[in-house]
């Protein structure tokens, strides 16, 4: 399962919803893999990285969690960690296995010069992954 901006699904991948102090995104996907990929792209849009080139760096990511919401927070926290510590922005995601409690993926991206915004953390605030017609949706609140 590969998810990249080129393989755009026919649904709105993410949109920002109002939050007084921080930033929140409503994310959609036809399945967990697409939801997670779209959430990552949505988080990139909040960080506003300087222009990044073609994917030249890949990281293997394996995560376990107690449920799908925890797994989503762990996934985004992982990517935010690489953004802060190595200025990496991932734009392409290949999932080799994903369930509600476990994922194995390769994230590909590039190093960028700077980010305009800092995502300090990914929160669990009112986080529920819901089934809806055509797939899954979740609203994620980011501490910025």
């Amino acid at each position, binding site marked *: 399962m590969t998810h990249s901006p080129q393989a755009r699904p026919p649904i709105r991948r993410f949109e*920002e919803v*109002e*939050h*007084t*102090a*921080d*930033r929140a995104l409503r994310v959609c996907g036809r399945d967990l893999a697409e939801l997670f990929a779209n959430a990552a792209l949505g988080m990139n849009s909040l*960080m*506003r990285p300087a222009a990044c080139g073609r994917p030249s760096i890949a990281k293997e990511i394996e995560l376990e*969690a*107690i449920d799908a*919401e*925890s797994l989503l*927070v*762990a996934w985004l*926290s992982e990517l935010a*960690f690489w*953004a*802060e*510590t190595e*200025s990496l922005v991932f734009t392409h995601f290949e999932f080799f296995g994903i369930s509600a409690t476990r994922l194995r993926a390769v994230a590909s991206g590039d190093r960028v010069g*700077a*980010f*305009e*915004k*800092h995502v*300090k*953390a*990914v*929160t*669990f*605030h*009112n*986080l529920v992954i819901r089934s809806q017609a055509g797939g899954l949706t979740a609203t994620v*609140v980011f*501490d*910025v």
Partner: protein
Amino acid sequence: MAGTRGFQKIGEFLYEIPVSFREGMRVPARFYADDELAAAMAGDRSLEQLVNTATLPGVVRHVLAMPDMHQGYGFPIGGVVATALPDGVISPGGVGYDINCGVRLLASRLEAEQVAPHLDDLASAIYANCPSGVGKGGQVKLKPGELDEIMEKGARWAVRRGYGTEADLERTEESGCLAGADAAKVGARARDRGKDQVGTLGAGNHFIEVDRVEHVADEALAGRLGLSPGQVVVQIHCGSRGLGHQVCTDYVNLFQKAVRKYRFELPDRELVCAPLSSLEGRDYLAAMTSAANYAFANRQVLAFHIRRSFEQVLAGKVKNFGLYQIYDIAHNMAKIETHVVDGRRRELCVHRKGATRAFGPGSEVLPEVYRDIGQPVLVPGSMGTSSWVLVGTEGAMAQTFGSTCHGAGRTMSRHQAKRSVHGAALRQELEAGGIHVRAGSLGGLAEEAPAAYKDVDRVVGVVHGAGLAKRVARLTPLAVIKG
């Protein structure tokens, strides 16, 4: 919970939501506001979030919110929640990700007129010497083991390294070093994020501001703090950087399991918590304390760089350019404190998330120099408006577990602020008002526009009127430095 249904006005500036409001509330929820601020609170989800905190196991007396309250995640920003030892809970979400985000106030012996010709250079020097922006590393290179020392010794580590004086420590909450830190409870990722960020400002709402004492509200108290009209002072607002953010991330994640283990039913997963007597609770407290000490060290190193900037720019041009510390306070913290509840002294864990400790006169934990007047409280306003210096009161001890407000409080989302305010135009507007601006990101500047915040004078008016703090002096900005 938009609207005013369910809350009752029980004092001139105090409202209460009774336990009957919602099933699961263990204590009433109280908040401080005037009519206009109460209406603003009813416009977002902050009151619902406050009510949620009233369901936490072991919560004591009532949960509280300050007049700068606004919507956060889990706890509202501006929330104060006390739980009783030994079995009450501690919640990482009740402290937030920026552990020991706080404010330090330095004062000069200079008048604004003396500094005016050099302000532009001063703003540039501070911007150059205090690294800011996303993920920016600092100039402090740590030796092996030194990060552990920072987490266990806090600002004491910085003073030992030559970044300040004993007088700075005396005028810092907890003398810049909270007891009970255990760096072994801080994970590898938090260490990675923190290892090169000591002495950095970061981004978001963090800033350094050169201010002028514009108005003194209480001459006697201002004199005791060393403040006088026209004087140049400097505020530093920042916290524990990536290290603190990761400590919170790690423990919020870990506590997702703990709530299942202890069978806590919570209305929001960001409220996850563990009993203070449990291994999980003790580990988080030790890790949070370590991150808090890192933040004290961070502000101490930033103060050093600001002093260096004053020297670089002003030496040979004006005399007495040195900066002395007024105080340094935390506004995101959970601390074990003793308070009188129903006539009995009790050991409590007081969570302050976007709220400031405001201990009144006579408190044994205050430095001798301030013990008879109460703890200085630093309330930064929105960029380009004003900030306040207050002192803590007996009223705060009696009503709010010794707590008061921490800032102006947002009313407009960052998203909305960016849509309605143009960063470049705002910068021009601030500069036209005589404020020198150095900012890494114009988008970030727009998000922090004054229009996105409540009126800090109104917020301070409420805490003063409610007896939660006393007004001492109002500061207005001369230069703003942001990531």
